[in-house]
């Protein structure tokens, strides 16, 4: 995607999260599996991307989560999304928040509120690709 295309899209300055996923991340932090909730947010995005998901819209019950500049200060997250997804004119962070919400729900489904097995997320992707 060219810089010109990127420039035409109106980007978010804040990313959002459904209330349910927010509660999941809060619990993960309280349980000591995450140092920061943003770490879980990024993991959610990565998990959804690795599974090739096309995420739906955020549920109506959602909230602002964090500033884009805090979530992705170097822009690497946006780059990774652009590399792997044809955004077709959508804002990268708008897409990112839908990926994150899906991914966090998937983590909750897999680990049922227990140990956040990050190693299994990594190895699953590697197996899938190979």
């Amino acid at each position, binding site marked *: 995607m*060219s810089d010109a295309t990127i420039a035409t899209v109106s980007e978010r300055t804040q990313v959002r999260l459904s209330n349910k996923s927010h509660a999941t991340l809060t619990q993960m932090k309280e349980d000591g599996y995450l140092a920061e909730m943003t770490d879980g947010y990024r*993991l959610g995005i990565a998990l959804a991307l690795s599974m090739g998901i096309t995420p739906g819209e955020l549920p109506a019950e959602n909230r602002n989560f964090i500033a884009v500049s805090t979530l992705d200060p170097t822009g690497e997250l946006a780059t*990774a999304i652009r590399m*792997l997804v044809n955004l077709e004119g959508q804002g990268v962070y708008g897409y990112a928040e839908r990926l994150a919400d899906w991914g966090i729900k998937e983590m909750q489904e897999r680990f049922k509120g227990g140990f956040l097995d*990050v*190693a299994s997320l*990594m*190895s699953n992707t590697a197996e899938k*690709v190979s």
Partner: protein
Amino acid sequence: MLVFGDNMRGKTSLLNALRWVFYGKALGRHSREIALFDLVNSEATLEGDWSMEVVVTFEDDGHRYELRRTAAKRSLVSTPSRSEDLLVERSMRKDDIALGDHLIDAEINRFAPEQTSRFFLFDGELLDEYEQLLIDGSDQSKLIKEAIEQVLGVPNLIRGRDDAQTILKAAQKQQTADLQKIGGFESQAEKQRHYQAQIESIEKDIKGQGERLRKVNTDREELDDDLAKVEAFYQAKQKLDDAASTRDKSANRQDDLHQVRLGYVRDAWKEVLRPLLTLKREHIQDEYSKFTSQMLDRDKVETKIAQLQQAVRSETCHACGQPLHEKERIAASKELGKLQADLLGFKVDMTLFSQHSTDLQSLNKLLKPTDSRQIMLIDNEVNRLSVELTTLDNQIEELNELIKGQDTAEISRKRFMRDGLIKQAAHIAGEINSSQVKLIGHQRDLAVISKILEGLPTARAAKSSRLVNLAAALERVYGRSIDQLRDDLKTTVEMLASRAFRKLTTQSQYSGLRINGNYGLTILDERGQEVPIRSAGAEQIVALSLIDGLAHAGRSAGPVVMDTPFGRLDKKHRANILAYLPTTTTQLILFVHEGEVDKATDLVHLKSRVDSVYEIKEVNLRHSRIERVNQ
């Protein structure tokens, strides 16, 4: 006679009953006397019965004896609380005629003198003490050496020498007093008095130091006994502390790893995407390479077109510079037209090429290695630590249960105190040695003065000087006699113990035993060379040989009672002992447990030698009953 009894059934109490009826004392650990108050059946005392009685009947030299000793509450005492509250009485009948109390000791000493009783009322648990005799200079060996010499009669001579020394000292004092009255000897008298005062002072010091040493050793032995009872708890506490410390370390390590892991989770998203991004990079890299290749091909065509255009225009070969013939010029024109047509087919999208280049740079940055891969290793280590922690928690719980109710701090305090007493004993022993060195020095100085005075006619004439000479000579005679008696006794004990050893050992190449200054024995091989290393079983055989040698050196053959004598011996040694001991005693009574003598196998071989077999059976924890076993 064989008396079987498991541990804690009362075999040693039976031995003590015999000791008590003969000598009025019972011995506990470290050969310490057990207080009379502690001998009375504690369960009976709860019902108000404080009486205790032992009766033994025996024969000696054709006479029949009955010896009885009783203990009972004194009439004015309602509930005894100490040994003094009990009254002990004894009586002896010889051929059914009662003997006066003053004759009883004399009768006992004829056939079973108390001094030698440790050799015929023998506690197998004390065998270890005899093994200490081989360690020259150990405290234990000194004590046992004294005990051995006690039974062999050496103390009589030692007491004689001590008496001579006392007379000598008194005479030297008198000599000093006499010399002061004789003109010209004041200075010698003053020196003599000085040394006498010094000697008296040092002797007093040595006595005090000896008492302190005995007190320290007694305290240490008591602590040893206390600690032996709680050793298992102390070991458990040590294990508990170790387990708790290991648990803390593991838990801390787990916490540290957890923190490191949290840091690695931050970049874990990149690792989740790494396989896909790597594929993407490979794809873009392929596209990029195609672009590059196309651009190179176009460059080549453009160069060739330029060369052909130049050749057609100048009619000269661009390679060799020769003029082109018409045929060649036409061919070049044809090729030029073909290449110009090919050039039209090259379409390179430079915008896309540039995008690929930018994407590759971004992907290379994204795919830089992170530490997040180590999360797997950390998780494995954390899991391992979790298993370890569970094991340790279980161990800690078990150990806590084991030491529940035990004052482990008190046990540690006692251990420290015991260690302190050991150091203190060594320190006092050092003080005694140094006092003795000083004493010998002053005694020599005093002897020198006495020798000088001997040569002076005026002094020699004094009565006190003559007494000094006499007492000094007497002391020398006693001293030499002690050395002579010790040497003779050692030779006798060595000979008797060697005889016993050859009968008891299973090693035919052992020729005998050699005795050392402490009455310790070393095994000799067939060449008469000392055998430096021996097994625990051999130690016991040597100790038993020494006991046998001492028993026969000190008295004629008589009955022997042995409590648990076979502790570490194998079958062959046990058989040798069972075959030999009855030949050197008039009656042998063995208190054994089934680990020492097997009722099923050993008894069959012994049948001809065993007159009667008894068994101490448990009634309950505090009650045992002795029953005769039918053979």
